[in-house]
């Protein structure tokens, strides 16, 4: 959706966006045509976003509501209290018990 345009959010008179940042009136779907030949798929070949460990502060185990520890190499969030490891896929933590790895079975 590109509804953040002028219709929804009336802008103040001046919008000093000098650095070429996409202004509210620009069409946000289209990235600048600056991708040279080394990225043939264009927008499809975006960088894989990493998990931001800052998020750990906000997340708890949905089962125990206890704290989680971040296993960077396996890309998992571990709830030691019940022995579950929640996967992080494409930088997005998957906080569903049915998707978690049971550490006690290993």
């Amino acid at each position, binding site marked *: *959706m590109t*509804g*953040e345009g002028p219709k*929804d*959010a009336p802008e103040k008179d001046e919008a000093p966006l000098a650095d070429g*940042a*996409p202004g*509210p009136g620009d069409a*946000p*779907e*289209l*990235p600048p045509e600056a991708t040279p030949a080394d990225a043939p798929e264009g*927008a499809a070949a*975006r960088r894989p*976003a990493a998990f*931001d460990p800052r*998020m750990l502060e*906000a*997340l*708890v*185990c*949905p*089962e125990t*509501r206890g704290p989680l520890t971040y296993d960077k190499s396996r890309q998992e969030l571990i709830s030691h209290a019940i022995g579950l490891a929640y996967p992080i*896929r*494409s*930088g*997005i*933590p*998957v*906080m*569903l*018990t049915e*998707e978690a790895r049971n550490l006690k079975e290993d």
Partner: protein
Amino acid sequence: MTDKQTHFGYEDIPEGEKAARVRGVFESVASRYDLMNDLMSGGIHRVWKAAMMDWLAPRNGQRLLDVAGGTGDVAFRFLGRAPQATAVVCDMTAEMLEAGKTRAEAEAMAASLDWVVGDAMALPFEDSSFDVYTISFGIRNVTDPQVALNEAFRVLKPGGRLMVLEFSQLPVPMAQKAYDAYSFNVIPPMGQMVTGDRASYQYLVESIRRFPDQETFLGMVEAAGFEQARYRNLSMGIAALHSGWKL
């Protein structure tokens, strides 16, 4: 072991199966979900979401949890109005979040936006950790909406605000009849054309019709502990906004 039944559109299915069935619907339609919303509502859902933002009045410094946030629509609008706010988008379906994360707005707002796969009935967040909780066209897909409302209450800070946007019931029987005719005869074939998936859109229209009416849902908001609970009809009641405060 629970034989408790719940709704999946017009089917009655065991409660344990609903989450997976709903996830199936959204995995199937994720990439064309926003387009389909536009077609189904003639673009009106944008007006409804704008009305939601008007009532919410986002402020800088607030922390938003948008549940069933799918492709990020509500979070983008919230941050668009309050650029110094932060938002977490939580959805059961990874495919929906991935679709949202690659949108241009998401890149521009990456520093103030997080994406989490989670269940509205068992949120992976601490008590009292958000200023605003929104759920937009999502709560009717939750197996037990009351449990989701209770969870909303738990994760909101004292003084925090709940806002639910959902399809609702038209108070005028004639209008409801016309609307039913539209939704049951037009939407599933349109879904077939746009996403190649008629069954998912059949589910959507059935689930809309089965969702509690405005007053019933207001009672559920109050039962979760919210105060000053109120609702506003949108487009004569095709959709409704419910608001409540954790005081």
